[in-house]
């Protein structure tokens, strides 16, 4: 998996005297969902932000399709946990914001894409609503739709479902997995929730405590396959995998997530 679409080449990051990410070499495949799992504040988010061009590596570099990442652009979109959608824009305009700076799309094309994503995320009935009138789950759907509308190839998701209730969270996990397969996107998903990681991931990269370094690389797709219906959570394989990851975390990182 070394010659992946997203490549970390000796990437390291420190903020002043504090080492946040130790020298990392890692390749992530295109059209796959990779979960960065690790204890809170371990530096996994920083690693992901560097893919987005929002933080700069202190040494080494990050390649996207063989090209060095310098600064943010719309090929890599962010989805945050909070402040994910603009409160002053309606659902429709929030999604349109993703296409706002695209000069390559005509008005008709933008409208078509808008319709597509409103439908895809079941947001059509809320098109004219402001974010404070819709549920937290809906707001996260808006954020993902906006990123896809922008035409991002890589989605960088920073604990996007962290603030949602359990049921909404499950539903969004199922949807995200389906959308990832359907839209053929590469997703880096940061979380500290083991269940979520195993359910969503093609591959889990487990990080140590700060400074982050890779302690395990788990091929989840080989065990669970690409399709993730909700029932998969009740299978023996899922349990075993989850327990394996939990053990790894306890043994390798010495941390309680």
């Amino acid at each position, binding site marked *: 998996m070394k010659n992946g679409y997203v490549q970390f080449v000796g990437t390291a990051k420190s903020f002043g005297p504090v080492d946040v990410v130790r020298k990392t070499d890692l390749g992530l495949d295109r059209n796959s969902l990779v979960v960065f799992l690790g204890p809170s504040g371990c530096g996994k988010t920083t690693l992901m932000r560097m893919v987005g061009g*929002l933080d700069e590596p202190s040494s080494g570099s990050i390649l996207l399709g063989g090209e060095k990442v310098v600064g943010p652009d719309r090929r890599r979109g962010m989805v945050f946990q909070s402040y994910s959608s603009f409160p002053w824009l309606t659902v429709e305009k929030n999604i349109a914001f993703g296409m706002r700076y695209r000069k390559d799309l005509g008005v008709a094309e933008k409208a078509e894409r808008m319709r597509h994503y409103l439908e895809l995320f079941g947001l059509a009935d809320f098109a004219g609503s402001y974010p404070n009138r819709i549920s937290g789950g809906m707001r996260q759907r808006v954020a993902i739709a906006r990123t896809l509308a922008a035409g991002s190839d890589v989605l960088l998701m920073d604990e996007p479902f962290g603030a949602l209730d359990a049921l909404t969270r499950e539903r969004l996990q199922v949807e995200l997995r389906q959308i990832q397969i359907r839209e053929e996107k590469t997703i880096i998903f940061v979380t500290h929730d083991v269940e979520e990681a195993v359910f969503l991931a093609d591959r889990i990269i487990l990080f140590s405590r700060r400074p982050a370094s890779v302690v395990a690389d788990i091929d989840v797709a080989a065990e669970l396959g690409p399709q993730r219906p909700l029932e998969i959570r009740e299978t023996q394989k899922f349990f075993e995998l989850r327990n394996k990851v939990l053990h790894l975390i306890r043994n390798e990182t010495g941390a309680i997530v």
Partner: protein
Amino acid sequence: MPAAVSDGRCFDHPGIAILFSSLFVFRGRASPMAESAVSVAAAALIVAGWELAARAGVIAPQFLPSPSRVVIALWTMLTEQNLVWHVVVSTARVWIAFLLAAAMAIPIGIMMSSYRIVGAALEPMIDFIRYLPVPALVPLSIIWFGVGEETKIFLLWLGTFFQLVLLVADDMRRVPQEFVEVARTVGATSRQVMTDVALRWMGPTLIDNLRITLGWCWTYLIIAEIVAADSGIGYVIWTARRFVKTPEVMAGVVVIGLIGLVTDQLLRLLHRRLFRYL
């Protein structure tokens, strides 16, 4: 027989008793109607008490004239002493200085929080000037600008600009980093982040801050008009004081209060209209 008679409630309108009893519940909610009724009644009670105290001669009229005498004074000032003209002059002074301060404070405040070089250069200076009391600068202002309009505008500007610029800088600093980064990752330039995200996010607090600083502007106006003016409400009040025309002094104060109230309500309305999404 209805049981309502015996429990002491108003039999004809049992609703009214319930409406008002909820006013006495700890942290309770009352209907807006009941609350307005209480507000009006309380104000009326104060005015009535004042009128009675004045008429009974408890306090000498040159100290506390009755409300009716204040209203009469107000009427005379309106019809015979060109009060409207003075109000217009004062309002114009406030708005010119205020708009000038806002037009400078908004871009400078935004730049202070956007680019460290601007912030580092200006913040200590502005912080220092902000603590200088405006009245202390009146003599200097008169030496610089004389006693004309420039002095008044300068003093009002001085009192608002340095406060507002720091408030704006603070608002800009509080724009969530997430919003900025989302915009950057969909292809916005720094300038577009500023206009399409930061300014939009700041909107509601900016209007609030403008509303508050406009109020301060009126405070400084009276100081400026008392010191050096031959027009404006401050001048009217100060002149009336010289002849111990207490009703006129009070009428002048009431006029300022009314202008403040009206302006504030208008700006609140604007706030609600502009930011329906809140």
